[in-house]
């Protein structure tokens, strides 16, 4: 609270960023410990969580007051005009501190931050030490939804990954639970429970982990029971290792052999080829398996088998200066490259997209050339394309697949989770999707806190990798409107909470860190709260039993990729459509069920209808915040919006 100097400012104007008119909402701005709240004269509330604030900007003073522009991580942009400059300055400073973003703008400040829970920074602009940020300051540690400890614990136990692996059918005769990483000794960023081929002994695992970046050796991500094929994940092999790693080769063989249905397996490298090639050029170490074998794919795909052997042998011998082992050892591995760009490319791509789509008075040509130059849709297409490769290998060839990128926690998480989503209808249910996120993202160490910038860490570590995953899922829901139990609102709500820091799930960068933070004792899990509001997130068109949706085969032709308006402009009320077809159908469907079940009890069913949770306080702040009920009110009230044509009228009246 020590950062808050002014708690209330009256006569503040809220402008719409897409409307050029002076039609602003006037109201009162409140600053609380966790939220910025604006109540307009219609008594409509706009809540902005401090953690959602990505940047605050104070613009030059105008005649009507001091403009303050706040950009949020959930793509909300608000433009306030505060009448007095002093108030504006106070709010600006408070928000800078409360949102911990004072440093985020200093991109030249590159931090080498090890696993530490507390950091202190030198604020370059003001030149003084600004308060240190630590995990314990995050909202989740003070958020209290009035639950007792056993309820809290039950919430955390809702998603049990051991149960999930059992559902997949492991352990079985080919796959077993390994205790090698019991104390996070082998790999700090992996979970404790890891599934590996039964024939892979502990020394093999340890050996392989030393050969892989960050110790992230190949482990099971998804097991397809009927095809007996597995999706495995790992990180890149370490460069500068002079010899081949027998243990790693053994582990790959073991994975391949764990699939009795097929004699070969795929290794999918999710990095773009040109990067691989330049990387390859710098490698002295030809003995390493990945590069050696993959060269035959990307150097010359048309080359004949025998030529290939000669060529490879020659290359290997020349470079390594030693004999090359029997090629048959590797004949059962096929390499595949799918080009997904790295986190830095993705970050600037989305930034460019938002710059373009946030422009007022944009022309159609500008939007599409902006979409094109940002490359965002191309990246989304590449990610989904990689998942399709995975699903095809498993379903049509019954082959196991090993996926890796560099560190194996960004692109690998995207591709593995999307691949599983295509293969297994369970992950397309509300609960299954939570399990999928827990498994492939949270447990396998996607660095949520760094990627979402929860603390003021290195801005170069921030990247919309998970947002991109959600967008891929959205594109799938668009192509298969009946294959998913959940709707768009569910995806948006999850996106809301990866940044909100209201719940413990997405705090920290890996399981080890989460245990050290004692998140399960000090914070709440998001999932039970989402399940409580399940009705809001259901897709009324869902066909759970439909056979044609058993395995999804999405079409990745370019024109199937669209700009996700409802994500990037969800708060821009003047950009239609604002009526959601799915919500109204969901309401009808819900009513139908209710009426059939219990015609007599009308009152109880009224509570299911939207628009009833208008009351809320910060303490018991509804986790599934009421944005969607606002949204739902719109159906019954297709209120004509402000048209962005004031220009025309202005000309007419002059």
């Amino acid at each position: 609270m020590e950062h808050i100097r002014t708690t209330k400012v009256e006569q503040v104007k809220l402008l719409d960023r897409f409307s050029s008119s002076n039609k602003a909402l006037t109201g009162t701005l409140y600053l609380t410990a966790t939220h910025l709240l604006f109540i307009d004269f219609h008594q409509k509330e706009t809540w902005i969580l401090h953690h959602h604030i990505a940047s605050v900007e104070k613009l030059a003073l105008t005649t009507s007051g001091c403009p303050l522009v706040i950009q949020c991580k959930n793509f909300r942009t608000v433009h306030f005009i505060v009448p007095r400059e002093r108030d504006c300055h106070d709010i600006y400073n408070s928000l800078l501190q409360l949102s911990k973003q004072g440093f985020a703008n200093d991109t030249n400040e590159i931090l080498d931050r090890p696993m530490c829970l507390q950091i202190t920074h030198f604020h370059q602009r003001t030149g003084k030490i600004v308060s240190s940020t630590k995990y314990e300051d995050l909202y989740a540690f003070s958020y209290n939804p009035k639950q007792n400890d056993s309820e809290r614990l039950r919430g955390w136990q809702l998603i049990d990954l051991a149960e999930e692996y059992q559902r997949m059918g492991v352990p079985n005769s080919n796959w077993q639970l390994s205790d090698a990483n019991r104390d996070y000794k082998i790999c700090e960023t992996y979970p404790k429970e890891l599934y590996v081929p039964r024939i892979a002994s502990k020394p093999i695992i340890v050996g392989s982990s030393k050969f892989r970046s960050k110790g992230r050796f190949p482990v099971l991500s998804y097991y397809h029971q009927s095809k007996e094929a597995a999706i495995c994940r790992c990180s890149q092999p370490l460069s500068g290792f002079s010899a081949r790693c027998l243990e790693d080769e053994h582990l790959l063989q073991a994975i391949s052999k764990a699939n009795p249905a097929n004699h070969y397996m795929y290794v999918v490298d999710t990095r773009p080829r040109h990067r691989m090639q330049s990387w390859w050029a710098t490698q002295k170490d030809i003995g390493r398996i990945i590069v050696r074998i993959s060269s035959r794919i990307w150097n010359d795909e048309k080359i004949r088998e025998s030529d290939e052997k000669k060529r490879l042998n020659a290359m290997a011998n020349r470079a390594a200066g030693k004999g090359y082992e029997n090629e048959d050892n590797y004949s059962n591995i096929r390499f595949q490259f799918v080009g997904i760009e790295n986190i830095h490319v993705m970050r600037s791509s989305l930034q460019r997209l938002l710059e373009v789509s946030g422009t007022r008075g944009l022309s159609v040509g500008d939007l599409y050339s902006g979409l094109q130059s940002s490359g965002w849709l191309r990246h989304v297409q590449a990610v989904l394309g990689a998942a399709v490769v995975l699903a095809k290998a498993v379903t049509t060839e019954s082959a196991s697949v090993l996926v890796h990128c560099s560190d194996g926690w960004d692109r690998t998480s995207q591709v593995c989770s999307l691949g599983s989503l295509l293969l297994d209808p369970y992950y397309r249910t509300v609960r299954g999707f939570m399990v999928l996120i827990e498994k492939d993202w949270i447990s396998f160490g996607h660095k949520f806190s760094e990627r979402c910038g929860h603390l003021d860490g290195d801005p170069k570590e921030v990247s919309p990798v998970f947002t991109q995953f959600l967008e891929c899922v959205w594109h799938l829901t668009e192509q298969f409107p009946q294959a998913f139990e959940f709707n768009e609102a569910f995806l948006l709500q999850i996106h809301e909470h990866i940044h909100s820091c209201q719940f413990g799930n997405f705090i920290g960068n890996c399981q080890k860190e989460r245990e050290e933070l004692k998140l399960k004792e000090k914070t709440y899990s998001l999932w039970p709260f989402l399940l409580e509001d399940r009705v809001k997130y259901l897709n009324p068109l869902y066909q759970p039993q439909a056979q044609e949706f058993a395995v999804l085969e999405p079409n990745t032709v370019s024109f199937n990729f669209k700009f996700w308006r409802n994500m990037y402009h969800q708060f821009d009320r003047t950009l239609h459509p604002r009526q959601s077809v799915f919500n109204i159908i969901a309401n009808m469907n819900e009513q139908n069920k209710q009426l059939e079940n219990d015609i007599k009890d009308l009152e109880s069913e009224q509570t299911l209808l939207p628009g009833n949770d208008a009351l809320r306080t910060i303490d018991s702040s509804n986790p599934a915040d009421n944005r969607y009920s606002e949204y739902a009110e719109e159906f019954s009230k297709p209120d004509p919006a402000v048209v962005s044509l004031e220009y025309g009228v202005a000309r007419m009246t002059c």
Partner: protein
Amino acid sequence: GLLNSCPAGVASCPASSCPCRSPLSPRLTLLESVLLGPRPTTSRMEFSELIRTGQAQAELLRGPEAPPLRGTLCVTGHHLLLSPGPQATPDLWLLLLRSVDSIEKRVAGDCGTITLRCKDLRVLQLDIEGVEATLNIARSIEALSSLESVITSFPFFYRPKGLRLGDAWHFHPPERYYKRVARETNAWRLSEANEDFSLCPSYPRAVIVPRAVNDDALALTARFRQGGRFPVLSYHHAPAEPAGWVRLPELSPCPQVLLRSSQPLIGPQKRRCAEDEALLRAVLAGSRPGARGFIVDTRSAQTAKQARMTGGGTEAKAAYPGWKRLHRPLERGRPLQESFVHLVEACGDLEQSMDHWLSRLAGCRWLAHVKEALSTACLAAQGMEREGACILVHGAEGTDSTLVVTSLAQLILDPSSRTMAGFQELVEREWIQAGHPFQLRCAHSAFSHARPKHEAPTFLLFLDCVWQLGRQFPLSLEFGEGMLLALFDHAYASPFGTFLCNSEQERCLCEVRTRTHSLWSGLNQLKEQRKLRNPLYVPNPLALWPSVEPQSLRLWQGLFLRWTRPPEPSEAAWEKVWQIVTDQEKTEGSQPTVSASELQL
């Protein structure tokens, strides 16, 4: 060739002394002979002359999703038939030859391949046994699909079961709309000055004009407007009472009107026409006191000025006090057709990279045209609704972009035009009766290699705008995407007579009303309803103000990618929606209070 050039001559003849305006001009008899062509008795013989090979064995490929069809291919006077062998399904596959836009033939060995690109943007491939047969069939299709005589076209032979000839033809005459206007105001009258199409060949017999203007003045005004298209009432907007739907004519707060016309024939000499000026003055006088008028010119100020050199122009400020001119350039004609062609080309390329696709989407400018059309319509509607002004819309001929603007403005403002019947009436009144030259504009679609003459997808642009409106307000239109697709298909090739010819005059000469079936009677059959209606429709008495930001506009995939992407998931989804809605209606019967209160305003 004659048919195509002749009515165009009428439309693009700016000189007021055009001979075609006199009722018994030799031009009319010429027109008659071209339109009617050879007598129907000889037409059958003519068809058989054009058919070189009646039958062949063939395999039909209908795109990546549908399974190929094998059987006997047969060319008839109006259709291409494929009857599968006895072992296969008994369904007969049928294609109206009129819907073939371009044809491409290739022969290899002793068989050939014909690729048919249809006006509804479908691409079909026929693999035919026998080189001779292939060439002959290709030639027959080419000849039959480009027959220009109206009277021998299929609608004159189409006699479906369950429909009566003459049904629904009197469903939407302007008289009917006038009755509605007369209930709201008495400032307007129905004039039959154009009874013999002598004032304006592209107008219907009856038009709605200010009561204060008599028929003689109308005749003089007609001479001052290109093609005789003097200003007529397009839409009378009486804002809904807050209470709901009850309207009291005498209390109607401030009725606004939307008019349309063609450009005035100002010419280099800056001519004026007292009657024309008086007509527009009378419009303002008939509205509330002190009302202002806006002339929305769908050309840029420069183009409008340049039009003076060829006898046209735009209203001079000084001559029309109370009226202010606004220029909103809309694309039309050749550039619009090219935009359509480029978009369809881009949509046919499945292999292109994302970058290439996005740059082609931007480069073809189709969505930019949609945005411009929608925002100009919003401007006109806003002028009426918010400014209480009278609006006159015109471009040059007043038969293309003018109609896009006036019909969209009505859809935005008028809840009754958003119903199934109201929308049909709107299309009938504002497009067909208003003289949009369908036959010229829709002679070819996006695939034709023929040199474009008068083709332009103006009507498609309108349909796309309506689709955008329906997407932004998914509950407010009673008709669904299916209706818009059906209108697109039928405008380009149809077994019904509704979209035949270029004007009411031509349709009268061809006796379209008595000798063909109306599309509306076809569409209003019960079995078609699920395809055409929007299951989620809830009447909405308010104006629909669409967002015209490019972020809110989307490519109409249902049309442009209709045949390239599998339709199943979305079709199945809509089936499910229908099921839920039907269930809803059932349960509503038992417990009406809940859903009614939820869904109503």
